[in-house]
């Protein structure tokens, strides 16, 4: 928290509110995206908060299981068969 200053022109509270959406790249407003990025660069606490959630997202994403190649092969074959079999 930086008292009396608002890096990027927005408060820590506003950044906290929008942080998840920002990290998911779902912030539609480009100028807001820039302001949040600027704030995260300048504000140590918010920057650490962002790092924490990036790490959590990363760890959750790593849980994605490998898809069995045989399954994908069967699905591709099924798709190819549709062309031949569907009346």
């Amino acid at each position, binding site marked *: 928290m930086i008292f009396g200053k608002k890096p990027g022109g927005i408060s820590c509270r506003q950044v906290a509110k929008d942080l998840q*959406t920002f990290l998911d790249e779902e912030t539609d407003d480009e100028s807001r995206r820039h302001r949040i990025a600027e704030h995260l660069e300048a504000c140590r606490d918010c920057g*650490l908060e962002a790092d924490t959630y990036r790490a959590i997202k990363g760890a959750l994403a790593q849980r994605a299981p490998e898809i069995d190649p045989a399954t994908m092969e069967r699905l591709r074959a*099924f798709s190819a068969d*549709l062309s031949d079999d569907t009346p």
Partner: protein
Amino acid sequence: MQTGAGEQAFQNYVLPELDVLYRVAFSITRNNADAEDLVQDTLLRAYRAIDRFDGRHPRAWLLTIMRNAQINRVRRKRPELLRDPDTTMGRVADESADGEGADRRLLDRTLDAAVETAYLDLPEKFREVIDLVDLSGLSYLETADILDVPVGTIMSRLHRARKRVRDHLESVGIDAATTAAPEDQ
């Protein structure tokens, strides 16, 4: 049989999404066999409808087809689930903890193990959204579409889920911001 244009559209729009379709189907069904069946059902429906598809947002189009296919499947299998709109996607069984993580090579096993524990502790509704957004890489809108709930609900569940994971990490003394650095651990 499709027209040549239909065949081409199917090749162009549907097949590149096969991987995502399977991941989403698995997130919904929590079961390899059911996921494969659901993808096949989706492919068949997509193939039949491809001539009416305008080519815009193929993933969203396919996810809508999958949602409808799953609703039909659940209706056939478990009619009672339809009473609660939040469960229309159906959770046939909760089998997420299948121990298949043994082969994973983790950059940070401590963080990952703690995140895994926290994830398994989450309510099913939260895990489902984490799976679709963080694992399958769907947008909020796509996730809302497949689960048939408002985008605001997706955001709320996702944020609360991650907050719970974060709280768990804190409770076991893990600082994710610094622990996540690769190598060294």
